[in-house]
């Protein structure tokens, strides 16, 4: 009934969706896993990254590799913003109830959304693909745009790098220790404050980077922050809150369910994804790769 090339194309499409979501959701998952902070403003960091990348491209435009420089600048800019927010605001509410975190990070969503509107206006903006990734090629009869392949490879690279840092490096050992027992780690003489700031900066860097990398294939508009945070949350919930690999496989499942769901129920593109989340929440409330909360 369907040709193989088409099914493969659909699979590749789902994989692109998945790796994009993973780039965004990985930072969200990291901060929750270690710091137990549900950062609603993560989508806003993503949006600021997109706007900063656009701005940098305008300034650098004719230069060679301007897109790559702009993406790096945007990611660093958002990382700096994240660091400031952690030091000046988030730091004060770690010991408090989760409700305060939600209020604070939600307030940041509103503030950053309005700030972006004041600085960049309400027109839709977009950035052209970098020339070296503008084309596409055929795989088993399906067309794969080069840029999509680049996104997939970036997603896998970040997953592997994240896994390596978390499980194989001294810093990763500290991070895992902080996730288990923050006070004990502090009592043993580790600088937990600096560790948290570092985590939040890394998470913001990932948000900013994904925002910048999305600009060649998406319009930059007010409201993209809220749109993306909902999808990132679905992915994190499917994979298990706080589980890094869970977020990776959650993204892959989300992408494929969306891709093939519209073949089965063409009129209900969103239904399949939300149905999946509902089923997982009922069967395994802690997600596919998460652990039940004590």
């Amino acid at each position, binding site marked *: 009934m*369907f*040709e193989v090339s*088409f099914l493969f*194309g*659909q699979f590749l*499409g*789902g994989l*692109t*969706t998945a790796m*994009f979501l993973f780039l965004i959701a990985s930072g969200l998952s990291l901060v929750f896993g270690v710091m137990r902070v549900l950062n609603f403003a993560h989508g806003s960091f993503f949006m600021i990254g997109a706007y900063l990348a656009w701005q940098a491209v305008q300034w650098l435009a004719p230069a060679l590799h301007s897109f790559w420089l702009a993406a790096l600048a945007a990611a660093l800019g958002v990382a700096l913003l994240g660091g400031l927010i952690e030091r000046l605001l988030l730091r004060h509410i770690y010991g408090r109830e989760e409700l305060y975190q939600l209020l604070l990070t939600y307030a940041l969503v509103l503030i950053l*959304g*309005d700030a972006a*509107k004041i600085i960049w*206006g*309400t*027109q*839709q*903006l*977009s950035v*052209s*693909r970098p020339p070296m990734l*503008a*084309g*596409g090629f055929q795989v088993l009869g*399906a*067309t794969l*745009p*080069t*840029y*999509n392949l680049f996104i997939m490879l970036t997603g896998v690279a970040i997953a592997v790098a994240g896994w390596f840092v978390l499980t194989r490096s001294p810093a990763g050992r500290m991070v895992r220790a902080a996730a288990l027992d923050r006070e004990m780690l502090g009592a043993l003489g580790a600088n937990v404050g600096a560790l948290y700031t570092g985590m939040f900066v890394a998470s913001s860097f990932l948000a900013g980077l994904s925002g910048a990398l*999305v600009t*060649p*294939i*998406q*319009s930059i*508009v*007010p*409201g*993209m922050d*809220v*749109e*993306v945070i909902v*999808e990132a949350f679905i992915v994190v919930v499917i994979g298990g809150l706080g589980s890094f690999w869970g977020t990776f496989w959650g993204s892959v499942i989300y992408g494929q369910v*969306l*891709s093939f769901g*519209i*073949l089965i129920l*063409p*009129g209900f*593109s*969103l239904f399949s994804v939300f149905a999946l989340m509902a089923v997982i929440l009922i069967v395994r409330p802690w997600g596919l790769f998460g652990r039940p909360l004590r």
Partner: protein
Amino acid sequence: MKMQRLLLGIFAASLVPAAAAAADTIKIGYPMPLSGPASVYGVPVVKGAEMAVSEINASGGVLGRKLELLTRDSKASADEAVRLARELIIKDNVDFLVGTLTSAEAPAVSTIAKENKIVFIAPTSKTVQLTSPANLHPYIFRLASNTDIDGRTGAAIIAGWKDVKRVATIAPDYAYGRDAVTAFVDYIKKARPDIEIVDQQWPKLGQSDFTPFINAQMAKKPDAVFCDVYGGDFVTFAKQAGPLGYFKAINNRMADSGEVGATDEALALGNDYPYGIWSDAYDPVIWPENEPAAHKAFIERLKAYTKEKYASGWAIMGYASIFALTEGIKKAGSTNSDKVAKALLGLSFDTPIGKLTFNEKTHETDMGEFWGQMVKDDRYPFAVMKNPKYLSQGPYTN
């Protein structure tokens, strides 16, 4: 004593103009999305309305009174628009309501207008529900053509492509997209019984990844596509569809009735615009050949007013909405809503894109759509509409 009287006189005199001015302005409540994704269009519509108000006030106002625009952010939400409409009527004592952008807000505000017997003009809402017989009341008026006209004019464009046999549709999954596609399918089946609808895709509004929808549609091998994806979504869609070879596969045979033929989307997409497709626009803004003088003058004033290099195709709707109302007030010789509502029936008024007339039965204007092929023009760094053709509503109404 004399001094006292003099002071009193000065005091009284100083009061009069202030009081008179306050009582004298004609207040127009203008709820419009100014934040969130819909602000892309809400903001230019409001700028058009503001420019109309400043022009009318500069030439002495209406019935000797100045206009006052009370703009509010409806956030594109029906609930918020209703709350604002109530507040504008009760607290700010507005004389009229104009505004709302989407097909969600306008029908909701319409019920408030009916309750309070106050004239409400919706500039851009397109859903047929707004003025359907069940929802029509004396105070509601609409400027834009409805979803029936969108779908049918798109169908007329595609019906003209004689070798097309397999047609697909893609449109956002809510009232606006669903209604337009229904109208398209009904019309094309009558106009071209030989055409088969081979695929229908329904991405959500604000979809960030269209790839699965694009692949699925290409697999059905359509010869042409009717598209109703608009705004930022269209920018995203076009950027993802291009590298997948979508537009090449259909030979750029696409008709998009989502107003993506204006500068707004063309500017955002630059050279990523799928040159060769057909689209409509409220106002093509850039009109390479045979531009009407009134339109040229309007765009020049608009660019000066907004200080933008290229004007938006949506400003015309805000601009015309204010002129529709003021012509109604002039004809009624009063700001009484009952009188103005009667005056608006059958009223004709001038706009930079030609004369519009309110239909006495439907309360809608006879506004059509500008259609044309989107082409590369060396004078501009983005796509422009080649020979914009005005498709009047005439042949496409019920």
